């Protein structure tokens, strides 16, 4: 069969760099997801004391000098680690690449809160005298900081920017990279999302004030999507960037291909600052299916967004049910149950944890599902233990964010 898109319009994932609270590369991450290992632990945050969070332990000094770490941001360090790992994984020697044709597209939920809180705290130690406010504050807080740090570190001279899209941002970084490749604006895209959010007390305090911050005596059990006893979000840091290439370029250099991007969609609820809207979520899922030329029954694994808030999970389940019904055969899982909510990284990171299923046929479960909420009882939900399935041709990721920003990404098994 002739593929409807020419090879220079087909976009493939050829490298993956990631850090998650339970793994610093795809192999470790996947092993954790198949063995039920959480990455959530106790965490100290300013003013609030002990909270729980997903914390990453990658070695910043693997790719950065101490001075770069000191001067930059945690989001910058996460981005650099992921970008360097992705390029290495892809087998690309940047020395032989026209770096003006490389684009860096990093999805972020927010940026600058961590650095601003740090500076406010710093001047509080000097009676709020602003002459003690750091000259590093502006470069640390400009919205393009995480992507910009990647370009400085890797001497990339093509375009760089962040895509601010709350918790839908990871997928949108990938979508942006895909679009720029298809437009011929760049030849290689470093694309995905990152989050440093756990280093701001404000994110914990705000979710707590909303009544949406998870608590549990055992941190590893705190993130429990679809469970009756779920009580909110576990905030986490993390990152995942892909090397995306046009298939024509990837084939020329004999690259290994993890997956081909089959379809995507982005839309807006136009409904509420924070509450989700299942009707628009369902429209987004349908739009992504349509773009991919697929029916709901073609999706083998649906990696849900569910963050374990009481209402949010139910709303997503309504959207999923309205598209997939009861008999589509899709297997459904959730990655936040292991690692909490990695915010801007979530879409790409969570999708990555599922990509090995193309080869090994295992669907990782959603864990901490001890007492299923009947409103979340989706057909095909893989609970607590991995499920071996016969075929994996298509994987879908849902990522939704505040202001009703919805993003859906579908990838397919690569066939040349």
């Amino acid at each position, binding site marked *: 069969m002739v593929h409807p898109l020419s090879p220079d319009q087909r976009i493939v994932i050829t490298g993956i760099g990631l850090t998650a609270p339970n793994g610093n590369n795809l192999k470790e991450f996947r092993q954790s997801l198949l063995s039920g290992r959480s990455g959530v632990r106790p965490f100290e945050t300013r003013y609030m004391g002990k909270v729980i969070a997903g914390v990453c332990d990658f070695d910043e000094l693997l790719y950065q*000098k*101490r*001075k770069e770490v*000191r*001067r930059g941001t945690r989001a910058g360090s996460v981005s650099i680690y992921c970008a360097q790992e992705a390029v290495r994984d892809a087998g690309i020697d940047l020395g032989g690449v026209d770096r003006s044709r490389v684009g860096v597209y990093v999805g972020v939920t927010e940026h600058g809160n961590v650095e601003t809180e740090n500076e406010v705290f710093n001047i509080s130690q*000097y009676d709020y005298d602003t*002459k*003690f406010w750091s*000259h*590093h504050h502006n470069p640390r807080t400009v919205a393009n900081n995480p992507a910009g740090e990647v370009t400085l570190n890797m001497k990339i001279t093509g375009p760089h920017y962040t895509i601010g899209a709350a918790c839908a941002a990871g997928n949108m970084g990938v979508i942006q990279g895909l679009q720029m490749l298809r437009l011929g604006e760049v030849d290689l895209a470093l694309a995905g999302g990152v989050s440093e959010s756990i280093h701001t007390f404000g994110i914990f305090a705000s979710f707590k004030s909303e009544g949406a911050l998870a608590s549990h005596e055992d941190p590893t059990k705190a993130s429990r999507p679809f469970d009756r006893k779920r009580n909110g979000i576990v905030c986490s840091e993390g990152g995942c960037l892909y090397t995306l290439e046009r298939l024509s370029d990837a084939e020329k250099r004999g690259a290994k291909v993890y997956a081909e991007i089959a379809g995507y969609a982005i839309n807006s609820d136009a409904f509420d600052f924070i509450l989700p809207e299942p009707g628009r979520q369902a429209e987004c899922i349908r739009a992504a299916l349509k773009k991919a030329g697929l029916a709901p029954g073609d999706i083998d694994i649906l990696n849900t967004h569910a963050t374990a808030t009481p209402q949010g999970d139910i709303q997503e389940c309504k959207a999923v049910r309205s598209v997939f019904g009861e008999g589509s055969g899709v297997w459904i899982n959730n990655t936040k149950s292991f690692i909490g909510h990695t915010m801007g990284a979530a879409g790409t990171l969570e999708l990555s944890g599922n990509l090995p299923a193309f080869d090994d046929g295992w669907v990782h479960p959603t864990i901490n599902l001890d007492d299923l909420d009947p409103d979340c009882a989706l057909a095909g939900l893989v609970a607590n233990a991995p499920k071996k399935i016969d075929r994996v041709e298509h994987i879908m990721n849902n990522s939704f964010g505040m202001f009703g920003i919805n993003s859906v990404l579908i990838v397919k098994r690569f066939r040349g």
Partner: protein
Amino acid sequence: MTVDEVREAILNILSDIAPDEDMSSIRDEENLRDQIDLDSMDFLDIVMELRKRFNIEVPEKDYEHLATMSGCVSYLQPLLKDRQLAS
């Protein structure tokens, strides 16, 4: 602070600002920027640390005195002579 203690205080600041550099081989009469990786933002860090650690305000017109280690010591020692080097 003695001259040696002022030098030590400056080295402590430089070690924090340029943590990848070897400070043991600094030659006092040569330009610091020729010996270790320091840019204009790093110089602002030196000025900030002098402000934070010793409450010393270095006006921009005096930045040139901080170009070498010996320049730093002779400029700062009179300002720090009555201070103790923090342990």
